């Protein structure tokens, strides 16, 4: 008898707690604001990347809602999911976001490998996606729903390979990269372009993401006597590599990629960052919006944004503008209509400067060269922006 009562009570409580949700969903669906989903690593060794990006989107949404939201009356909702940087977690995140949260648009995923998997899903579901950081050149080839506010590393590899040869004057370099889409993509791009110029990659070593011991690879690299080492990896591994290189008395210059722009590298390996040259998205022209963004972001979250966070912030505002236009035309937030409006973005003034998408969803942009001169993020010196035109390295004024 008692048992039955308990079950009944349980069912009653469940019904009470669940039913208002259904009621809300049914009655207000016509007048609800759009939902933006976010996927990125927010715990684990790569949490630094995802957290900075998620914060940027959070900031953008709060600012926008403070002004009233879409059409001045419909606030935007942000739903963030943790991927831990793994494909499995990323796929279950998009599953939840698309079917249970019913998002209208997605920002992320942050990592290239995860973006490949999630990109396939959003393409078949018809959800617009803007990744702030997945740089692999084939990401936007997934389909017309995939965009990015980060520069394709097709260009990063081209500029890096040619810059190392022409401007830095290296002829023999070594490359130590991770066996994942991001690192391998950059390795291939740099090798192809560096060797096309006449240089030679005399030592290629690999590791698995999550490895901590790089001494075997570094000892082999040291024996090959390259002039410099290119490490297109993530901070957790790059910090370990820099420190162990110094323990092996390997003192040649290190070259890196946009992953180096995350300030966590200075916490993990501050004593060893001096002299590193890295290639990443060109710095925005100093503009008032960028300054205000960095100031507000730092005030709110305690640390400054990295380049991916800046891209996330722009992605959010590109969506706001697209949703605004779609809502004006159709009165709702249809996923396909939002996609079309994102694709139609023209001369968008973001904190990164003027932004346009190419027809495949890639950003029209340039690569910048950065040099670390000390052991803090403030010691980074900007050496200028470059692009490649007709196979030639061209400095952008």
């Amino acid at each position, binding site marked *: 008898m008692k048992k039955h009562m308990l079950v009944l009570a349980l069912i009653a409580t469940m019904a009470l707690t669940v039913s208002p949700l259904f009621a809300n969903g049914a009655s207000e669906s016509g007048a609800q604001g759009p939902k933006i989903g976010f996927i990125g690593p927010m715990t684990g060794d790569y949490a630094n990347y995802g957290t900075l990006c998620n914060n940027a989107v959070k900031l953008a949404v709060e600012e926008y809602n403070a002004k009233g939201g879409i059409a001045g009356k419909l606030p935007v909702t942000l739903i963030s999911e943790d991927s831990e940087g793994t494909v499995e977690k990323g796929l279950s995140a998009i599953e939840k976001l698309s079917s249970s949260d019913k998002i209208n648009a997605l920002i992320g995923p942050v990592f290239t490998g995860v973006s490949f998997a999630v990109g396939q899903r959003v393409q078949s579901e018809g959800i617009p996606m803007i990744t702030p950081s997945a740089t692999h050149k084939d990401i936007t080839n997934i389909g017309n729903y995939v965009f990015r506010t980060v520069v394709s590393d097709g260009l990063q590899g081209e500029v890096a390979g040619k810059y190392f040869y022409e401007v830095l004057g290296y002829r023999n370099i070594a490359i130590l990269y991770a066996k994942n889409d991001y690192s391998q993509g950059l390795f291939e791009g740099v090798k192809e372009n560096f060797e096309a110029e006449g240089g030679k990659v005399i030592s290629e*070593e690999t590791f698995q993401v999550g490895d901590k011991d790089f001494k075997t690879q570094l000892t082999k690299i040291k024996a090959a006597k390259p002039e410099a080492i290119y490490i297109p990896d993530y901070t957790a591994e790059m910090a370990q590599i820099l420190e162990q290189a110094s323990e092996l008395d390997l003192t040649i210059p290190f070259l890196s990629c946009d992953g180096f722009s995350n300030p966590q590298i200075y916490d993990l390996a501050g004593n060893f960052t001096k002299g590193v040259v890295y290639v990443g998205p060109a710095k925005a022209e100093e503009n008032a919006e960028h300054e205000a963004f960095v100031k507000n972001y730092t005030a709110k979250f305690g640390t400054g944004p990295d380049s991916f966070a800046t891209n996330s912030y722009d992605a959010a505002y590109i969506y706001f503008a697209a949703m605004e236009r779609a809502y004006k035309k159709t009165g709702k937030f249809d996923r396909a209509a939002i996609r079309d409006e994102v694709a139609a973005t023209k001369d968008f003034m973001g904190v990164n400067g003027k932004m346009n998408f190419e027809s495949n969803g890639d950003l029209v942009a340039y690569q910048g060269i950065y040099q670390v001169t000390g052991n803090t993020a403030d010691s980074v010196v900007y050496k200028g922006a470059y692009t490649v035109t007709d196979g030639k390295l061209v400095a952008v004024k």
Partner: protein
Amino acid sequence: MSVSEFFQHFMNGLTLGGIYALIALGYTMVYGILKFINFAHGDILMVGAYVGLFTYNALRGDASLGAWTVISFFIAMAVAMVACGGLGVVIERVAYRPLRHAARLAPLLSAIGVSFMLSNSAAWAFGTQSRKFDYPFDNTPINIKGVIITPHQIMILAVAAVMMVALALFVDKTRMGKAMRATSIDQDTAMLMGINVDRVISLTFAVGSALAATGGILIALDFKAYPSMGMMTGLKAFVAAVVGGIGNIQGAMLGGIILGLLETFGVAVLGIPTGMKDTIAFGVLILILLIKPEGILGHAEKEKV
């Protein structure tokens, strides 16, 4: 391969092996007495690294490298050893002792459960990101005819050697060690001879876990501290213990060094792809199990009638 490159790989492998050996000692001790693999050993190591890290940072404050940082480091190490020793005793009391007479599989599963509880609690309490453990001394590498050795590497080898000798002396020469050996041979008879078997087993866990704490701190200096740090290293140390002959203290040391060298030279000389590094460890395990199941220094046990 030049001579100096060869010796460089040799040094890298030797220190990696030293770390494996240090942890393998703990596995081997517990196995020798209880015939039971303590799978939570790797996670006790992780707890030791965190305790050491927090104690060291608190003691050190803003002091620059010098005598005080070295002193605080050794205090931190002692604190971590005591904390882990206590943790080991508690785990044995709560999760293993009630199962001592249960089926063989039960304590093993219990150990795996403890392992997950420890690493998940650490992830929850400390976050999952890597934390840097600053060297307490100047770790500028020393160049000996082209072979680069860091003070930290020397310390790993020294600590591993000292621990092994101390442990061997303890087991061979002291009364408590004698009690341990007696317990290891036959618990019931040992009890009849007036040995407090429960105390001997508690002590075994205390010593094994204290050793793990030392290993954890030495690893964290090199590879940083993070909640899953004990997982792979623990597994490899277990392999090292089996390869050397589980239950045998010198065997654990030998197994560790062999494994470290094999991993390094497998990649450097035999040209095995770096991604296959861990395959070497477990490949060796299978080989040893096939050829000499009792391990290199182990003695084949005859079933007594």
